[in-house]
């Protein structure tokens, strides 16, 4: 009888803990890719966050249809941008102040995804390649190619000092 009581108590505890709705639904089901700015310290040859000049605004044109201006960019600044569902290459036009302009091409695949009946569908992406011009961008690296609803760091842009 003692074993029965233990078993029933254990099962009841497990059932109460089984109130998992299976849903990891996100409020905003749009996936963003995150780009960090880095530079190489000349003295130590190590990677450091890029320090934006205080007076410089960063202008950003994405896919030729949107225009954003960032000011007061800090070393921790990052770009979090949504990818295009229907194209396989997104184009970023980066302009530092009024002088240098560089273009970054982000090639990617699009992954329409069924999450669940509770959460519906979403669009994930996979970055396949990066190309860029080199006025102030030294190099571009894919850190984590898969883009879903998680806040991963996907791209590092190394800025020439």
């Amino acid at each position, binding site marked *: 009888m003692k074993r029965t009581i233990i078993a029933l108590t254990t099962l009841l505890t497990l*059932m109460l803990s089984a109130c998992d709705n299976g849903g990891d639904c996100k409020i905003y089901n749009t996936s963003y890719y995150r780009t960090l700015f880095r530079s190489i310290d000349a003295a130590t040859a190590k990677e450091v966050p890029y320090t934006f000049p205080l007076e410089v605004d960063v202008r950003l044109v994405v896919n030729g249809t949107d225009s954003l201006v960032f000011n007061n960019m800090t070393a921790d600044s990052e770009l979090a941008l949504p990818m295009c569902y*229907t194209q396989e290459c997104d184009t970023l036009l980066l302009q530092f102040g009024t002088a240098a302009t560089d273009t970054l091409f982000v090639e990617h695949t699009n992954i329409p995804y*069924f999450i669940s*009946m509770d959460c*519906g569908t979403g669009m994930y992406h996979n970055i396949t390649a990066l190309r860029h011009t080199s006025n102030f961008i030294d190099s571009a690296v894919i850190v984590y190619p898969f883009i879903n609803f998680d806040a991963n760091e996907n791209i590092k842009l190394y800025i020439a000092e």
Partner: protein
Amino acid sequence: MKISSYILLSSLIALLPLTAQSQETTIKSDTVSGRLLDFRGLSVSTDLFGYAYSLLEDYTSGEVAIEANLGNKYYPIFEIGYGSSDFTDETFGIHYKSSAPYYKVGLNYNFTNKKGSAPRDSYIYGLARFAWTRAEYDVSSPPITDPVWGGSVGLDLSDVNGFYSWIELGVGVKVKIYKNFRMGWSIRYKARVNQVSGSNSRMWYVPGFGNSRHTTFGGTYSLIYEIPFK
């Protein structure tokens, strides 16, 4: 939560005659066998609760089992079932279809009997199972619209291969109803062990498990026939 309450209430009701009976009956010890596998017989059963799922959930299933009796104490069991779902969600307009067999192996442990003692008409048991299914599924949805850049992309997947395994722990009751026939309830806690889905989707309905979650619970209502062995 309504389902769990119903299962618990019904189990308690099923226990009432068992409690009364255990007070009245004096169990005579059978010859206690020292053998490790003290084989006493086989029984076959079918789960009727799975058919009722179609009234409560978006799927249905049927299941049969064969169980060995070792010393009226241990009952190794193999269960095989078939589950199906063909459901369209009203909120998102997503359609999901899947049907496949599933398998469970495990053990029932009789809490009431001592090993080798004479069988009781009714008893409470604990259960443990390892279960798995390999299912193909279809899923389709209305086009996914790009909220920023515009345009839309369709999602229409067919014959996606999925694999799912899980464990079950629970308790049950078996009651003799007529000669070699018994009926029984069980309630089961289920926990996922492993899941393999397609690159564009997750399994949503898992035959034998229910809707894909980390943990869930379920129940069975079985009709059992004990095959007489001399």
